[in-house]
């Protein structure tokens, strides 16, 4: 089983609040990713990182930001949560090419009221 963790698992928060979703992995992977997924729907890549101090935006535009100060830690922050941010957020990490297999965390289900 992959060693990638996300906290909190569930979060209900009011509009305008600042939130940080945590993601950590113990596999020493350089590459990490954040996906947004509505329940039972496709994955949308919103951020990725190829290593410390490297972050990029993904295919889906997002108001969130990320940081990568340590290899094992890749938090996602929403400065001012809105109901449109209600979704599931999945964190993943991957080893080196060419395989590039991604390992997923359990996800954070966010509800903004």
């Amino acid at each position, binding site marked *: 089983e992959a060693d990638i963790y996300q906290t909190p698992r569930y979060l209900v928060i009011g509009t305008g609040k600042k939130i940080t979703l945590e993601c950590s992995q113990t596999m020493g992977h350089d590459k990490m*990713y954040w996906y947004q997924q509505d329940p039972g*729907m496709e994955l949308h*890549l919103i951020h990725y990182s190829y290593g410390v101090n490297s972050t990029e935006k993904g295919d889906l535009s997002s108001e969130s930001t990320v940081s990568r100060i340590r290899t094992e830690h890749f938090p996602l922050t929403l400065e001012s949560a809105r109901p449109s941010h209600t979704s599931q957020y999945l964190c993943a990490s991957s080893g080196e090419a060419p395989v590039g297999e991604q*390992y*997923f965390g359990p996800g954070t289900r966010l509800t903004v009221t």
Partner: protein
Amino acid sequence: AQTVTQSQPEMSVQEAETVTLSCTYDTSESDYYLFWYKQPPSRQMILVIRQEAYKQQNATENRFSVNFQKAAKSFSLKISDSQLGDAAMYFCALSRISNDMRFGAGTRLTVKP
């Protein structure tokens, strides 16, 4: 453009029967990997099976096997002796040396008792 297409949004199968999920992809690279991921309801995304493009032999993992047709860029997943625990969203994915993983839109599999 690199794309992964799953043309079946939903599939159903009777318990103990066999079902095949379809996936087609497009890439200009000759070296790549293909994956099937399983996401059970409210549970973690896990890897089901992996196929290296340079291998002609189809990958098999217990009741799960693939039919990899490289020329046709087709990568279907066959689940034999379906069990209730196989009910999930299944995502086909493509990983290439030069870029990260691309996921299909997913197929929701229902298993009927």
